[in-house]
Structures are given as structure tokens and as C-alpha cells.
């Protein structure tokens, strides 16, 4: 049985500038890309819950044609972004409906999902779909931009309550966010009277993640600008190491081993072997 999903789907691929932004931030946010009628249906689907799927299921096996989740993934803007990140025919690692109950009193500790995952030449993405408007007091997902390359395990970061420049998600209904697997995040305390729903799907790539997006703008100067982004919570010294690690990730994604930002990698890799004349 052939489980090819890709030939039936398409959508606008991400630009290099957008991919560079993902490499810097560790996330890609698409506001209100799911239409209102689907969001209304999505609320019903999430309230009922979805059965588990076996780890590593091809999308057509996990989500039959016409199902809500399948239609969500086939929205052109969602399909294009997903393909740009993990390529054609990713498998579904797992999915979950996350519910933050009203006045529940406590937030999740800041964490990365699964276990420490230090791959430098591959990554999973987690799609997070919000079917309803999320206000600040509904406890929208907390995430920490630029934390995805930190080598920490699950909730060992739970001691960190707030970091400067953190993102406390407030979004319109129909918003989809893709997270790099390593991004620090957590469900915030819901201080409202409204139940908040979120549907998460983790995807594993099945191809090498190299130049999977629209690379026609690879030389755009905004690529380097995005990759050089720094965040207010970075200690300045460690922030330089973040840039170093981002350069390595961009080299892996593009196959360009000469790419650098401000000489950070080139300088510390320079070991000339030639003898002086």
C-alpha cells in the first residue's frame, strides 16, 4: 500500500526569509488561516476528542480523507508551511487535544516536549491549532523565542517562570503555530471563565531537510538579518553562541558550508594546515 499524501496537496512554500525567521525564533505563526466554519467544527471535534494514532503513522492513515484533521492539513497555507519545514509525506509522531480549564490555578512548567533532542541536521515540528479567539487571560501558550537550540531535558526548565521577550500567545480563531521540537513552552494558567482548546500534532520528517522551501530568495539580505536576531532574555555572551549554533543549522538546511554571520563560525574553525613559505 502506498501512503503518498503529498501528490494530493500543495500550497505556497515558505520563502528563505521566512525559514530563516523560523531558524532564529524556533516557531512560525500563521494567524487566522483556518476559516470560521472550520473553527466552529474544530471546537466540536476537540470537545469530543480524537482517538490516538500509532506512532509514525503516515498522514493518510492517521487522518482519513475528509476528516477534520486531514482538511486542516490540506489548507494550502498550512500544507505549504508544513512541507517547507519537514518535506513531503511526514509521519504523525502523535497528536493530543490540550485543554486549559477555567480558573485552574496553575500553569504548566516551562518545558520542551518528549526528551532532550539534540539533532543538528534534522528536526520535528509541532503544529498547534487554536480554534477559538485566545485572550491574554485564557492562558494561551507561553513560548520562549530562540530557545529551541538549548540542550535541556523536558521540564528541567520549570524553574523559569518568566523570561524577557517571552511570547504569551494571544491570537484570533483559526491560528496555526509550528514549533521546532526543542522550543521551550507551556500552557499558561487560565484565569478566565472560558475553556481553552488547542490541537497539537507532532510531525517527523521522512526526507533530509535540505532546501525544502522556495529558495529563490536565498541571497536576500533579510535572510542574514533574520538569522542574526537576538532576544531580550539572552545573556549577551550566550547569545553569541546562539548565533553560532544557528549558523550551523542554516548550513545543514541549505548545504552551504561556507555560510556565516559576522565570521562567528569561520573564526573559531580556522586551523590552517599549509606550511609557511
Amino acid at each position, binding site marked *: 500500500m502506498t501512503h503518498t499524501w503529498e501528490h494530493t496537496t500543495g500550497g505556497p512554500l515558505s520563502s528563505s526569509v521566512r525559514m530563516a525567521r523560523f531558524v532564529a525564533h524556533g516557531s512560525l505563526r500563521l494567524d487566522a488561516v483556518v476559516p470560521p466554519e472550520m473553527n466552529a467544527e474544530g471546537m466540536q471535534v476537540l470537545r469530543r476528542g480524537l482517538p490516538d494514532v500509532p506512532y509514525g503513522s503516515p498522514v493518510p492513515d492517521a487522518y482519513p480523507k475528509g476528516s477534520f484533521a486531514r482538511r486542516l492539513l490540506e489548507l494550502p497555507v498550512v500544507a505549504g508551511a508544513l512541507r517547507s519545514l519537514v518535506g513531503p509525506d511526514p509521519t504523525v509522531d502523535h497528536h493530543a487535544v490540550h485543554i486549559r480549564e477555567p480558573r485552574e490555578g496553575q500553569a504548566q512548567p516551562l518545558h520542551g516536549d518528549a526528551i532532550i533532542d539534540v539533532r543538528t541536521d534534522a528536526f520535528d515540528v509541532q503544529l498547534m491549532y487554536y480554534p477559538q479567539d485566545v485572550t491574554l487571560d485564557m492562558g494561551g501558550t507561553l513560548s520562549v523565542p530562540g530557545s529551541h537550540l538549548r540542550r*535541556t531535558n523536558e521540564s*528541567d526548565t520549570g524553574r523559569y517562570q*518568566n523570561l*524577557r521577550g517571552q511570547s504569551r500567545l494571544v491570537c484570533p480563531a483559526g491560528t496555526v503555530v509550528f514549533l521546532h521540537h526543542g522550543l521551550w513552552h507551556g500552557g499558561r494558567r487560565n484565569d478566565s471563565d472560558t475553556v481553552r482548546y488547542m490541537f497539537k500534532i507532532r510531525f517527523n520528517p521522512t526526507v533530509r531537510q535540505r532546501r525544502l522551501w522556495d529558495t529563490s530568495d536565498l541571497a536576500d539580505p533579510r535572510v542574514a538579518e533574520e538569522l542574526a536576531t537576538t532576544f531580550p532574555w*539572552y*545573556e549577551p555572551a550566550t547569545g553569541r553562541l546562539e548565533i553560532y*549554533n544557528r549558523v550551523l543549522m542554516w548550513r545543514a538546511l541549505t548545504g552551504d558550508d561556507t555560510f556565516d554571520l559576522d565570521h562567528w563560525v569561520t573564526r573559531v574553525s580556522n586551523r590552517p594546515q599549509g606550511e609557511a613559505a
Partner: protein
Amino acid sequence: MTIRQQVLVLYLATSALDSDVVGWSAYDGTGRTSPTTGDGDEPPYRSGVHALEDGWRLFQAAQLIPPYPGREYDVSFLKHEFFFERLVETETGSGAGELRRGRLRSAP
């Protein structure tokens, strides 16, 4: 009257106590407040010294540990962590601690 401890953790931009706050956490032994993850975007103080000036007492500072050989370019936890305390008089214990100890943590 009973004494209870309030704890403030500040993460600073460098190992210097007068450098800027980049992250923070708080724990309240009086039970009057319940600080939690993602409950604010503005740091309580600009620097560690500003916390001292407001009466917080430093009781622990992160050591300066050389990078592990071969892992010098890795990024991981925040490095410059400072623990402060403030002792507060309360009429009685709040009793909230028992409740919190019994609560199950929700799955990530």
C-alpha cells in the same frame, strides 16, 4: 506572629550582580500570592542590585563553571542565577501548602 520566607530568583545578563534582569521567578511562603509560569512580561527589578535596594537578601549565586571540554559552544540553562529571600511576618500559616502538595500536576 509567624515568619515565612518569600523567594525571588533573578537571572542576570552577566555574572555581575548589577547587570540587567533577563528572567525571574517568585515563590511565596506566606501563601498570599501564587506566582506561576508566564504570569508577567515585566521584570520586578532592573538589576540584582535594585532588588537589594528594595530589601531582598541575596543567599545564593550561581558559580562560574568552565564549559565542559568539547561542548564549549553548547547552549543550555541560564548561567547567572541569583536567589534572594525576604522574611515576612504573618499572623498564621495560610494552610495552602497542604492543598498544593496534594495537587496532581497536569501532563505537559
